């Protein structure tokens, strides 16, 4: 056995989008498709028709990715949505095969691509611990030995014999993660699972994962939370459009990833292709403006306007967007579906949404937004890192806010009162 835990050699994965999108293939489709194809083939003999699947129908989720991860490495993989992070983890964990290339692995792989996969709502907490642990590849003797620790870690001792469907979602996550945390694979793959659960529990899990690393375990971690990545990983890999564009320190990886995001933002919204949703209506243009006087400058405590222009028109379309700070933490969310008396309903099938914020409660810094459109009960369009904007220092409620302390990202209008007790002995 060498010192490598995982080696990837020109790993590529191709998806046929046509097939992936139509999730419910039917035999009828297959039959008519086959008929069309053989007809096309017949025609192709006469003149060259478009019989081969063109590049438009396939998507390279990964393309020629080569890397080596040493035993005991703590690697964070960053990249925007659709960059291939999850696909890479799925290949390493054998869930899906590479289309070409190969991956060599030394040691037992434990993957945590989603918490609680395989939990059965009708079974009790105790039963689910055994089921889930065995799905993750733990042996029964191991589970029995670790059972008390797992239950204690999850803090659900009192509810062990209650069906999991009566658990709060937080409890379910805790129990599932506790099981996973006691997995003892040589290589642990973790995908974004800490996004759930409360902060205190997240911290506990991170501590536990840090311990794993000091025990010589290899951990490969994917998250959109850059702060967590920084805290946990030493090495970072950047995936961009299915290719490995950087492999080095985590700090450099994160700054390159954020650079990537900004580069994405220089692409006009209308030309962005990294979207998800039904796409019957989509965001065509985004404008972020400050107050009238200052033009485009957005300041702390000043007015700000977020304007979204749509391509397409559907009844009951709603728009929501999230403001995230420079490390990718969501700061706050705005949703047109949640009405207030001041809202203006000009049209039920709007082509433009304007969100006005009279006093922007953000401290100086760089922020970006993720946008979603919903209509007809479906996600129509989701664009992450749709736009970036800078907030300049300003005044909130008459109080200058410099934001230089770097603590938090909010500025809130407030008032102090300083009083002294009249009978005080203080001279």
């Amino acid at each position, binding site marked *: 056995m060498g010192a490598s835990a995982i*080696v990837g050699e020109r790993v590529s994965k191709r998806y046929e989008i046509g097939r992936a999108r139509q999730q419910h293939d039917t035999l009828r489709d297959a039959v008519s498709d086959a008929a069309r194809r053989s007809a096309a083939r017949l025609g192709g003999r006469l003149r060259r028709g478009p019989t081969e699947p063109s590049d438009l129908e396939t998507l390279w989720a990964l393309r020629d990715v080569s890397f080596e991860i040493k035993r005991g490495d703590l690697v964070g993989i960053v990249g925007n949505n659709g960059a291939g992070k999850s696909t890479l983890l799925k290949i390493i964990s054998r869930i899906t095969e590479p289309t*070409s290339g190969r991956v060599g*692995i030394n040691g037992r792989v434990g993957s945590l691509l989603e918490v609680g996969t395989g939990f059965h709502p009708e079974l009790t907490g105790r039963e689910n611990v055994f*089921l889930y642990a065995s*799905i993750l590849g733990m042996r029964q003797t191991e589970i029995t030995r670790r059972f008390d620790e797992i239950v204690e870690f999850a803090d659900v001792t009192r509810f062990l014999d209650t069906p999991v469907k009566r658990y709060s979602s937080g409890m379910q996550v805790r129990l599932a993660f506790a099981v996973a945390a006691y997995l003892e694979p040589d290589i642990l793959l973790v995908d974004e699972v800490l996004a759930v659960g409360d902060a205190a529990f997240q911290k506990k899990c991170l501590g536990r994962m840090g311990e794993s690393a000091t025990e010589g375990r290899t951990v490969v971690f994917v998250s959109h939370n850059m702060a967590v990545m920084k805290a946990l990983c030493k090495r970072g890999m950047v995936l961009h459009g299915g290719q490995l564009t950087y492999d080095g320190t985590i700090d450099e990886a994160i700054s390159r990833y954020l650079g990537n995001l900004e580069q994405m933002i220089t692409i006009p919204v209308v030309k962005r292709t990294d979207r998800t949703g039904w796409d019957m209506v989509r965001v065509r243009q985004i404008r972020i403006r400050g107050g009238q006087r200052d033009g485009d400058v957005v300041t702390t405590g000043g007015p700000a306007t977020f304007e979204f222009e749509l391509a397409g028109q559907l009844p009951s379309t709603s728009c929501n967007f999230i403001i995230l700070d420079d490390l990718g933490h969501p700061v706050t969310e705005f949703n047109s579906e949640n009405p207030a008396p001041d809202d203006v309903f000009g049209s039920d099938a709007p082509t433009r949404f304007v969100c006005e914020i009279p006093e922007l409660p953000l401290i100086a810094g760089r922020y970006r937004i993720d946008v979603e459109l919903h209509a007809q009960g479906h996600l129509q369009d989701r664009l992450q890192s749709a736009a970036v904007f800078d907030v300049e220092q300003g005044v909130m409620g008459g109080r200058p806010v410099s934001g230089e302390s770097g603590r938090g990202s909010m500025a809130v209008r407030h008032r102090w009162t300083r009083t002294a007790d009249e009978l005080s002995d203080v001279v």
Partner: protein
Amino acid sequence: MSTEALGRGSSVAWDDSFEHVLEPTHGLGALRLPELISFRELLYFLTWRDIKVRYKQTALGVIWAILQPVLAMILFSIVFSDVAKISSQGVPYPIFSYCALVPWLFFANSVQLSSLSLTLNPNLITKVYFPRVYVVTSPILASLVDFALASVILIGLMIYYSVAPRGVGVILLVPLLLLALMTTFGVSAWLAALNVKYRDVRFAVPFMIQVWMFASPVVYSVAALPAAWRDVYGLNPMSTVIEGFRWALVGTPPPSAGSVLLSVLTGLIIFVGGLLYFNRTERRFADIV
């Protein structure tokens, strides 16, 4: 910043000493028996889950396992014996049909549950790795519990109608059950793998099972058919299973040697074919489920 890809064409430390190598597989794919063995505990847990969950939150609970064949027996006795006057080869019709219903319902229920098992657990398929064949196998093994419970009633009925089993012939129930298991697994594996891609299977299965039941000697006996047909009936392995059960337990004439041979052959073909088809398509499940 540069977005030029790293590693393109560059060599990495590939030294051919890895414990596992993951690369595209072609053709039928290997059966990976050692892996199946190392994951055997999971099969046990999945089966145990299916047993525990099957009758959760039902008022009658496990009684359903008995009620299904008993109600079918009563219905069949009225319709096919009293009304249609179908011959039951001198055996009281209730036990004649019940004896067939026990293996038949095992097959029908297993196929129904197992063919949907992959699409009912998409998260298991797309988020964790383990031999997927166990997802299809566990509902079948769990149905064996129902089979055992229904068999208890069968014993009760045999005592009630004072029907004696055929002595040593009862031992032949074991290979007959094995034939039923092989057929059940083979059909389920085919359908479950097909259902991942074509959801039509979900709608087709109930109808298929109904047709298959009338193509099997559940409500009638093969002896009632023209002689030329009797061997051909062996093409349906469940026919031999049912006729064999009746022969061993209630003393009807045995299925013809030709039909038994044919059944074993088709049973094997269904089993191996199902396994191979499943194995060949398994690698694409996570991408299309």
